[in-house]
């Protein structure tokens, strides 16, 4: 082939690169491994992730749910996973129709009018929601609940650092574990939005209706963030409760934990704000013969057309993960989504009951409604207790809140899902009891 383009040596292909920056030697990356060697090596690396092989009560933004087998089998069709962004609709209708179904499902679950084709994840969706609220309201102050996932808050702060937006932190009520309404006093005519997570980081369900009222009174938007999207199978849809933008982490919809990514940002809003949405949108279109098809639409919002004036810089999103979620949601369907949500809530309630029975343990926010996560206050330091639970009982007992709140030394955030059989819950309770005796 070289000859056919008039060259004699591969080096000549790189003639347009100045000689002084051309590499002379091979890179010092590892030598090539054959398939069996690579597999053996990666399996041995993976085996070191001991937490992956153990019953777990970790949640806090990433959840263990059962993934129906067909999800992975269908996304593994090369027609889906090797395709590019559907810029050529005539040969991308599979992807486009799936996204259209995804958008519809997100609307149905959140109770909103329009949803986009996905964002990177829940955390960046919150940040983009803050930016969008500013675009919509042309106001520059955003009040953020102190019960928002701390990593989400950190991301939002980073995103808006140079956007001229003032992020104001509202605390949360130590009695109820929910956003502190009184601290929302800072709400005024300059406020673009209130951002609140529900169920919040501590597992407590927020009163969205009340928050929406507060926000709307001053002309601000209410942004609701959901990290445990399975809760949408049981909890009132945020849209119905008055939210203006709903963002969520969609990982719960059949997406593996995968050490934090790839996950799936859901982003939905009201019809009237559709043109302020970040990210891609798929809409219905027709060909000359009137046949229905789907296309990427409202592209004038996007960076490849609007460049620096775009609603976001996002280009590649989480397409395949959105497809996973779509397949998950359609497989579970109307009944299944309610059943799995109910199981999570029931099992969490059972676990909470079992744990409060243990001497020395309490639930600081026991009076507040919750879904499948709750804070437990232990009689000893959480860190050490969890370490012993892991090493002596082979249970990952939850998250020590000191990871994010150093002063909360004894608090553990526990999450229970349909994947935790009763025996595991009982073993957790037994472990907590015995290790603190």
């Amino acid at each position: 082939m070289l000859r056919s383009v008039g060259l004699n040596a591969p080096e000549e292909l790189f003639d347009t690169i100045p000689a002084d920056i051309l590499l002379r030697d091979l890179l010092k990356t590892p030598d090539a491994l054959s398939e069996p060697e690579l597999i053996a090596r990666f399996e041995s690396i993976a085996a070191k992730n001991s937490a992956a092989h153990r019953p777990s009560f970790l949640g806090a933004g990433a959840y263990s749910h059962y993934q129906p087998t067909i999800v992975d089998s269908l996304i593994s069709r090369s027609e889906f996973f090797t395709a590019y962004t559907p810029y050529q609709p005539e040969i991308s209708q599979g992807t486009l129709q799936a996204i259209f179904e995804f958008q519809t499902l997100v609307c149905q679950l959140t109770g909103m009018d329009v949803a986009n084709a996905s964002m990177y994840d829940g955390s960046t969706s919150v940040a983009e929601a803050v930016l969008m609220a500013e675009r919509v309201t042309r106001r520059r102050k955003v009040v953020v609940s102190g019960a928002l996932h701390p990593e989400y808050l950190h991301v939002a702060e980073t995103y808006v650092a140079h956007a001229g937006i003032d992020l104001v932190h509202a605390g949360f009520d130590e009695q109820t574990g929910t956003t502190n309404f009184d601290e929302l006093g800072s709400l005024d005519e300059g406020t673009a939005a209130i951002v609140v997570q529900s169920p919040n980081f501590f597992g407590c369900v927020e009163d969205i209706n009340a928050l929406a009222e507060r926000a709307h009174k001053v002309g601000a938007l209410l942004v609701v963030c959901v990290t445990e999207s399975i809760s949408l199978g049981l909890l009132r849809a945020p849209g119905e409760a008055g939210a203006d933008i709903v963002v969520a982490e969609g990982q719960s919809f059949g997406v593996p934990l995968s050490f934090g990514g790839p996950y799936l940002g859901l982003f939905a809003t009201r019809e009237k704000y559709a043109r302020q949405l970040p990210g891609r949108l798929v809409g219905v279109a027709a060909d000359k013969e009137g046949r229905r098809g789907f296309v990427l639409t409202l592209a004038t919002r996007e960076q490849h057309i609007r460049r620096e004036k775009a609603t976001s810089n996002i280009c590649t999103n989480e397409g395949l993960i959105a497809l996973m979620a779509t397949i998950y949601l359609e497989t579970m369907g109307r009944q299944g989504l309610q059943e799995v949500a109910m199981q999570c809530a029931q099992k969490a309630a059972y676990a909470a009951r079992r744990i409060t029975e243990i001497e020395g343990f309490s639930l600081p926010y026991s009076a507040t409604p919750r879904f499948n996560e709750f804070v437990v206050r232990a009689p000893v330091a959480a860190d050490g207790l969890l370490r012993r639970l892991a090493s002596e009982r082979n249970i990952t007992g939850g998250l020590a809140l000191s990871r994010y709140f150093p002063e909360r030394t004894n608090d553990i955030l526990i999450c229970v899902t349909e994947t935790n059989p009763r025996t595991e819950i009982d073993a957790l309770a037994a472990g907590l009891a015995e290790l603190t005796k």
Partner: protein
Amino acid sequence: MNKASTHITQNEALIFERSQTGRKGYMLPALDVDETPIDELLPAKFRRTDDLEGVPEVSEVDVVRHFTRISTWNYNIDLGMYPLGSCTMKYNSRLNERVARIKGFANLHPLASEEDSQGALQLLYELQQSLSEITGLAAISLQPAAGAHGEMTGIMLIRAFLDARDGVGEGDRPRRNVMLIPDSAHGTNPASAHLSGFTVKTVRSTPEGQTDLEALRELCAAGDVAGLMLTNPNTVGLFERSIKEICQIVHDAGGLVYMDGANMNALVGWARPGDMGVDVIHLNLHKTFSTPHGGGGPGSGPCCCTKELEPYLPVPRVVLEGDRYKLDFNYPKSIGRVKAFYGNFGMAVRALSYIETHGADGLREATEAAVLNARVIAHGLASDYDKPFEAAPMHEVVFTDKRQARKGVHTLDIAKRLIDYGFHPMTIYFPLIVQGAMLIEPTESVGRQEIQQFIEAMRAIAREALETPDLVTNAPHTTRIGRLDEAAAARKPVLRWKPEEKAAVA
């Protein structure tokens, strides 16, 4: 709705239109704990009231058939060449997919303790090491989820570095608020610069498809330049020959150079941005390192920078201390965090697998093949299509529709007609500076035979444009649906299915 044909697989409806009350596609283990009464569990005012109306009710077979059918309406890499310029549609190895699904990776919770996730941290660390070696840049963050996200991160690094260097305090107006971006750049570049509060100024390209050094010098003279965002090879597929001088000019003006690494597939193993004077770069693991595009994502856009910029990288960083891998949060100058957890870990697994199955020589050979393939196409089509730039292209080559346009056949038509020959179209109308651009990137994942088939198809289309232009302007002819009216779709957007709109939509 008219039927595309009588064929059931060609007329698969929306799943909502297939739903039938009471059908189920799942089964869960029975609830094994004592039930709490529902009102005790959650007061009614917090509960859903709509019984999830509208959410589909279908069987498992329904779901499998639904997605299998609509999947056949997609083109994909395994069917043939997917020569999207700038997108690097290379083969997505099944081995990478396999190892990413190993339970120890797939089931690992991101908040597991360091002790319990040593394997994952090791993998991230080793990928950082390899990417550092490949780019010649000292420090890496794997947190960004895609190219644009990496751009945003990199630009924020520049801002943070300059503010610190120039003594700009919090709340002060930064001294340098201009980001220079060539007119040929991808749209994400200005959008990302804007997100970090920069004003974008455009740098001209020369008729030869290179950055105009004079224009650059002029812009830099203003003293407000924070940096330059440059793609190299640039978006017309040419290596920026004066890259070192470009970096020098920007550095002399007190700015930094950001390189959009989308085109690294032309360089891996042959040249390193770090050796060119570049300060910060993002990579697209979903391009150069073969992680699947997935119909639009997920991606991964590692941000790689010099030692000087390292203190500003997002936290946590993955570091090695003795024989333990750690998440290090202790970077007080860090710009913060651009994503929860640690980036798209699953893509990191695939990318490392790519790097390790290729080995250093395999990586070099892949680059060589990618460039050679583009060169063969450049030669093969030069007689039939207008090639706006003389210089030898790297991994992708741009042509235009200039000759065909005389007959009323435009880039869009040529692209659509390619579909009838079994190829995905090339990237069209990008970059914007080339009128009627057709940007062709074959990648290394195509054999000689298929490259020839592609060239023949393109030549056949050139002949058709002369002889039977209607055939081309009405293409594609072999797809389920014809060209869609995108303008009408945008005018009155229907963005979701609704029961009451069933009739209207259908």
